[in-house]
């Protein structure tokens, strides 16, 4: 898992997930119907959690590769 290119790809996935989260948040902020808000809670929020996990994983892997952790 120390391959930087692999982490770069995973981070791209995290960025895409964060983009989807932001677009869903935008929709929820502009027109917050109960269905849109429920989708935001149960779809968008888990996406950003996954993106954060990938980001933390990448940072930890990067630090390990440099023998800092």
């Amino acid at each position, binding site marked *: 898992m120390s391959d*930087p*290119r692999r*982490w*770069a790809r995973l*981070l*791209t996935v*995290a*960025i895409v997930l*964060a*983009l989807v*989260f*932001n*677009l869903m*948040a*935008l929709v*929820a*902020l*502009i027109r*917050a*119907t*109960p*269905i*849109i*808000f*429920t989708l*935001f*809670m149960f779809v*968008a*929020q888990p996406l*950003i959690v996954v*993106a*954060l996990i990938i*980001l933390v994983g*990448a*940072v930890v892997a*990067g630090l390990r590769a*440099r023998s800092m952790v």
Partner: protein
Amino acid sequence: MPLPHGWIGTTSQWIQGFGIALALLNVILLLVVWFRLRATGAASSMWGWLLVAVGLVPIMVGFMAFAHGLESSATVSACGSCHVMTPFVNDLRDVKSETLAATHFKNRFILENQCYTCHSDYGLGGTISAKLAGLGHVWRYTTGRYEVPIKIAQPYSNLRCLSCHGESQRFLNAPGKKEMMPELIGGQTPCLSCHGPAHPEQKKEARL
């Protein structure tokens, strides 16, 4: 109605505005980080940008969207967004209607969020159970697991009426009300048995 001098909007409107601005900023930030990541291919040099774009700003956006959504889900228009509620909301807004809900609405006995105010218990527990019930409503509505005419899930609690009316002098000084208080608090005599109907009868109809 004209707004007071120096009106700068409500807290909810500010949260919505900041949320939209932050979300748009975050989209731009994410696109910049994405292109830079593709160009350099090195993740470690982008950590600072990534932490801001994927971590910090989305958390702020999420907080604002959640706060705004929570606030918006209590409005009458949110309740009326499901077509099954349309007759009730139409009746609420009908100035000629004499139902209890319409009387409260047209006289502004409740200033805003009239559906939510009457159909949720007071305090944090009431808010949580109302929101959970709302999730159940969304689930049943989207999956079609409901029957028309819809019915209230549990008998309407008098305590919801008494939370506002119970301390009102007009209510307390009305003939017989003080004597009836134990019965009203205990729920043996529903307020709606004398002051109903709360809403119009919903016709049995095909679901759309």
